[in-house]
């Protein structure tokens, strides 16, 4: 049975030894972020901070809910030792089926237990963390689901974008200009100078947050994919101040309007590529009209930074599956796609059944033709396990010809301005460059000249392999 909320999920995490409850009082001003960061960097557990300085008893902050592959596995109801390949496969299978959400009334929506409206709205009543010292503000929206709607088609987009407190009833945030949030705002609100209703959701069920990171196609509702992933519908309830539908079991729902004609500073913020780099004061301003929340509410935080963390793990999963689907639709002969969390979606590994320059160029064209979030692509042969980075590195080191095997593509107007190595001008103009490393044997080479990999399974006869395997114990070598 699927988890309805973070609270259900924490029970399982605790049982599996994947949750630490911090009962000591901690400071929302830098301390929770520092603890969260150190824990990520030590591959530690999810954290529930149960006592927050300045805040009433019961108000909590969490970190790292699905910040490791084992916790992602648990969120899917899989054994915690499931391999990355198994998790990818399970995710891929489940999201192929879409299950529409179920609309519930206020009485069945724990997120409506408490309601602040209008002049009563006060974001500072919640323990919003200052995550990294030197951030532009207190980021209440890190592990969040941001919902907005295209009024013409009624498509409700879910995305994960950063939002910080500006004042007690204003947020500022930075969905990228190439995001679906921006697409809807530019298409349906800015031309008419209309504010756009927005809901920022904290602490829904864990799979809803994972799907919010996915690059689902425009005009497709993420809530349907959440249903497929859960194996049952997600419960949604209508907002107080708009027609947006939000997860009914969420901890906190911040309802507001993104303004078409007012701006205020956002950022800087230590972001998912693992750096805090110059992207600030170029976002959106949201006037908050209502906050609904559960009693003893939980602010779901991720102390974003160097990988791995929830962001890099979720993006690895959702992006890889989406990329694989896209490449197959474009007739690229792939075996699989891996997005190593360490590469923070900047680096992708693509396995192909037929390599060479033409395939590599097709892959580079696929990744650069629209919004470009990635920039380095290692293309490997089918005999390389894309999930095994040691094999991938060996393949890259030994098969990518420096003179013939590196393909580039420059572009403008669609790069990822969070990319740390872009200079300020490139970030402003969304200029960028992507590269593909053809690490495959040229398909035109005759079989006799293709090097044979000197590994146990490839350079010995089948008979010898069988003989050694069947006699292994008798050799007395413990592996």
């Amino acid at each position, binding site marked *: 049975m699927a988890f309805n909320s973070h609270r259900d999920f924490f029970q399982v995490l605790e049982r599996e030894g994947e949750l630490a409850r911090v009962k000591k009082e901690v400071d929302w001003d830098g301390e929770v972020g520092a603890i969260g960061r150190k824990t990520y960097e030590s591959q530690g557990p999810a954290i529930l901070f149960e006592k927050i300085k300045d805040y009433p008893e019961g108000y909590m902050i969490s970190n790292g809910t699905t910040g490791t592959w084992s916790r992602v596995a648990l969120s899917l109801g899989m054994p915690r030792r499931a391999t990355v390949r198994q998790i990818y496969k399970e995710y891929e299978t489940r999201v192929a089926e879409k299950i529409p959400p179920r609309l519930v009334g206020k009485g069945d929506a724990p997120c409506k237990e408490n309601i602040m409206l209008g002049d009563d709205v006060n974001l500072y009543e919640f323990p919003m963390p200052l995550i990294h010292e030197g*951030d532009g503000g207190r980021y209440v929206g890190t592990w969040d689901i941001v919902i907005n709607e295209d009024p013409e088609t009624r498509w409700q987009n879910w995305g994960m974008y950063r939002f910080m407190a500006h004042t007690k009833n204003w947020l500022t945030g930075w969905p990228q200009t190439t995001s679906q949030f921006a697409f809807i705002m530019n298409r349906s609100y800015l031309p008419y100078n209309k504010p756009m209703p927005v809901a920022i959701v904290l602490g829904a069920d864990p799979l809803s947050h994972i799907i919010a990171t996915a690059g689902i196609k425009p005009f497709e509702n993420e809530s349907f994919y959440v249903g497929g992933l859960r194996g049952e519908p997600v419960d949604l309830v209508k907002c107080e101040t708009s027609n947006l539908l939000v997860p009914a079991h969420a901890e906190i729902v911040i309802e507001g309007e993104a303004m078409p004609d007012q*701006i205020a500073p956002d950022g800087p913020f230590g972001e998912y590529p693992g750096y805090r780099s*110059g992207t*600030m004061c170029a976002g*959106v301003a949201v006037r908050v009209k209502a906050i609904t929340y559960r009693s003893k509410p939980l602010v779901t935080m991720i102390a974003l930074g160097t990988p791995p963390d929830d962001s890099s793990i979720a993006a690895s999963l959702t992006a890889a599956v989406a990329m694989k689907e896209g490449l197959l639709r474009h007739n690229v002969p792939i075996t699989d796609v891996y997005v190593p969390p360490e590469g923070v979606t900047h680096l992708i590994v693509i396995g192909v059944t037929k390599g060479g320059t033409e395939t590599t160029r097709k892959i580079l064209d696929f990744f650069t033709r629209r919004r470009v979030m990635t920039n380095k692509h290692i293309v490997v042969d089918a005999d390389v396990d894309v999930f095994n980075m040691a094999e991938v590195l060996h393949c890259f080191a030994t098969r990518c010809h420096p003179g013939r095997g590196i393909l580039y593509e420059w572009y403008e107007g669609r790069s990822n301005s969070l990319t740390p190595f872009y200079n300020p001008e490139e970030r402003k103009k969304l200029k960028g460059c992507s590269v593909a490393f053809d690490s495959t044997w040229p398909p035109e080479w005759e079989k006799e000249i293709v090097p044979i990999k000197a590994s146990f399974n490839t350079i010995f006869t089948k008979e010898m392999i069988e003989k050694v395997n069947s006699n292994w114990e008798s050799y007395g070598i413990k592996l």
Partner: protein
Amino acid sequence: MKEWQTFVRRFSDMTEGKRELFIKDLTPGTAKYDTKHVIAVVARSATGLTDPNILWIRGESGEKAVEPWYIAIEQVMKEDCVPGKPWEDVLDAVAKRAK
């Protein structure tokens, strides 16, 4: 002295004199980092300022300038934001208003 914080792209962008800016309240408590939109006189020294507060400057990657500046707030604006389109540079928008 009360302490505030503001962000600029480069430390050299901060100049002495009267200006419009957004400042963050560093007073401990639940409203720490609340933003005020102000008209203020900013200077490297508190000398000559009326009721000066400390103003810390941070650059666009969040790095803090070593030495504090000082600020005398003349007016707290009613508007929490400035006119502009989403994704426009707020600092440029404020600078244009000054001209």
